[in-house]
């Protein structure tokens, strides 16, 4: 079990690093999927097989697929890769790496202050998880369902395209007016009455 754990952990970290440094969005997503699968293996070694399964199905399966679909929908192409090249430079990593290093250091300090006991090998199966979910954590389940419903409705509304034939009418598209007035918000509203016709 132990070597499996360390191996999977190493793969997870490595593939995350790879993901961060990719220029092409789809490549990065694929690396991310690899990372998630590795984390699923880690879960299995920790004695949580149910969670491992869930990780693969939902996280890597649904969420990442959603990502990929959106990326493909956007259809960015070569131009985006060029842009990424200009945006991601080596020196940009310095600041965040320092901050992250400090964070890790603090974490390590915190850990070292508590006694670490041996890792007990045991499996917490789906039966116990289910019992816990429908027992003390029932309200959490309900709330989670609210959340998902809200996300569903929100995503629908946000995703809808502008219907053809809807007149501009009284609706003033601030962004367009602003770009028309070259960033001067004061002048952006000057022909407001014209748009209200």
């Amino acid at each position, binding site marked *: 079990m132990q070597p499996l754990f360390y191996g999977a952990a190493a793969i997870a970290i490595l593939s995350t690093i790879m993901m961060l440094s990719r220029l092409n969005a789809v490549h990065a997503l694929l690396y991310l999927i690899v990372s998630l699968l590795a984390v699923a293996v880690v879960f299995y070694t920790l004695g949580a097989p149910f969670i491992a399964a869930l990780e693969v199905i939902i996280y890597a399966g649904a969420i990442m697929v959603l990502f990929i679909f959106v990326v493909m929908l956007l259809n960015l192409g070569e131009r985006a890769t060029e842009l990424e090249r200009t945006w991601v430079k080596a020196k940009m990593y310095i*600041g*965040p790496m320092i*901050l992250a290093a*400090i*964070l890790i250091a*603090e974490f390590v*300090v*915190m850990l070292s202050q508590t006694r670490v006991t041996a890792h007990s090998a045991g499996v917490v199966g789906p039966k116990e998880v289910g019992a816990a979910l429908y027992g003390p954590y029932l309200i959490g389940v309900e709330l989670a369902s609210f959340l998902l419903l809200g996300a569903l409705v929100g995503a629908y509304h946000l995703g809808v395209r502008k219907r053809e034939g809807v007149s501009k009418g009284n609706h003033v598209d601030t962004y367009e007016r602003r770009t028309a007035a070259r960033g001067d918000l004061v002048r952006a509203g000057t022909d407001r009455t014209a748009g209200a016709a």
Partner: protein
Amino acid sequence: MLKGLWLIPTLPLAGFLVLAILGPRLARKPVAIVGVGSIGLSALASLLIAASFLASPPAGYAYTQTLWTWIDVGGFQPRIAFYLDALSLLMTLVVTFVSFLIHWYSAEFMLDDEGYSRFFAYMNLFVASMVTLLLGNNLLLFFLGWEGVGLCSYLLIGFWYTDPINGLAARKAFIVTRVGDTALIVGLFLMYTHLHTIDIQELMRRASQHWAGGSGLAVAAGLLLLGGAVGKSVQLPLQTWLPDAMAGPTPTSALIHAATMVTAGVYLIARTHVLYSLAPVAQEAVAIVGIATLILAGLSALTQWDIKRVLAYSTISQIGYMFLALGVGAWSAALFHFMTHAFFKALLFLSAGIVTNALHNEHNMFKMGGLRKELPVAFWTFLIGGCSLAGLPLITAGFYSKGLIIWQARAAASGSTALWVLSIVGVLLTSLYTFRLIFLVFFGDAKSRVSRKPGYAMKVPVIVLGVLSILGGFVDTPWFLGNVHRFSDFLQTSLPPPVEGQIHGVSELGSEGLVGLAFAIGLCFSYLVFLRRRNLAEALTARPLGKALHQFWFADWGMDWLYDKLFVQPVLWFARVDKQDFIDLLYTGIARLSELFYRAVRTTETGRVRWYAAGIVFGSVVFAAIVLFL
């Protein structure tokens, strides 16, 4: 009858209110009727009250009428109350009567002016304040009147406010008298703090009980009150404002700056005479101020070319006589001179007004001449007034009042030969400049054409005043000329008689004789220099010493220049230095500092998501560090 005392200040006040509110909408005639009528009624009231007072005097020769309690705080309860005794009765009578005549005169004099109703409103307010000053029975009411007359003086000097020079003169008057007023206020506070009352009569009683003769407090109070009186009554060293105050309309100069307001200081000192009796040092100071001013102003009057400025310096000089009389303890003499001076000085100003009006506002005497044919009324009344001023023996009021003062300057216990001699020199000077004025204006060749003759509203008041300038003196004459003592007897019901000192060497007859002689010398010399041989005057002033003296006396003995250097320039310098308002830097500095901080903080609002995310991370790192290590 005495119950109508409150009408005397209230009628002019009512006139003021009516004119202030409705004035601009009324035509000339109603304005004049209200303006002159209110004073006329007030004068009538004071006449009736005077008759009643003289016929059946109240107990103690004093009557107090309390209207209501003004303030009631702690133990401090000043009332609106009027106190009538011989002193205030005399002054009120003179003030209201002369005011009435002057108002009547100005109904015609100011006819062309746009600010007709404004003028009468201010004049009415002035009379109301002056009478309040005279009749008030406590120091607070007195001070109210004092400030009121100062305000009206300012308003009336700067009456033609569109010309900035007039505004400057008004401000100068106000500021200089303000210096005196400060001394007055300190004196009032001093007296209140130590004697715990502001009722004047009560104050005087307690002063004589608690303050020993010559005590420091009495001297201090006396000198401080003198300071106030000096400002208002245009004596040294605060006399610089009156010549410039001639920028106001002539009736104003006649009323305020000749007959009434400038005598407020005299009234103050006379009212608090007990204090001065307790502080001989202060009283001597009064006399010295009087005599010095007398001579100074007389010499300055000799060099002026503006007809009104001559009269202004003459006023300063004559009030010097009044102060001199107060200083030697001759209280009734001072008030006698006040009365006659009111008559003849108002007369002189009004006649001068007729002259300047006739010559289209020409004030320069050297451009006038030979007017005695064209303006007979003006000439005769001016002559009478001038003779009264100079003291033509036996027939003019001025002779008797001045003579009395001069005699007392010698005869009284605190008098001295030096004072006596100097005051006679003063008579010489007075005679000189007065006849210079008369000869230049009315005799000689005509230099300007007369365009306007006075109407009857301007002639009657001057004639009345002319009559009074002759007859007014006969209420008090020396023993060898009729021995009438009505005036002094009347006043002695409220003011003590002068303390007689050792008289040796000169008798009253001799004194009066010398006065007459001084008058005559002045007249002759004036005649010679200004009528017969004009070139003699020019020759005198052409020589270097003559020229220097002429300049010096013309510029009021350099006092304006001195005050400018001492006070005005430093203040202006500081204002220039402070132009950037560096004292305010403390506050603007605070504002700028916060602006700096704002700018610094503003750079953190970039609107970029990653920047904010970095901020969150940084914050959480710091927080974790704090939790871990502290």
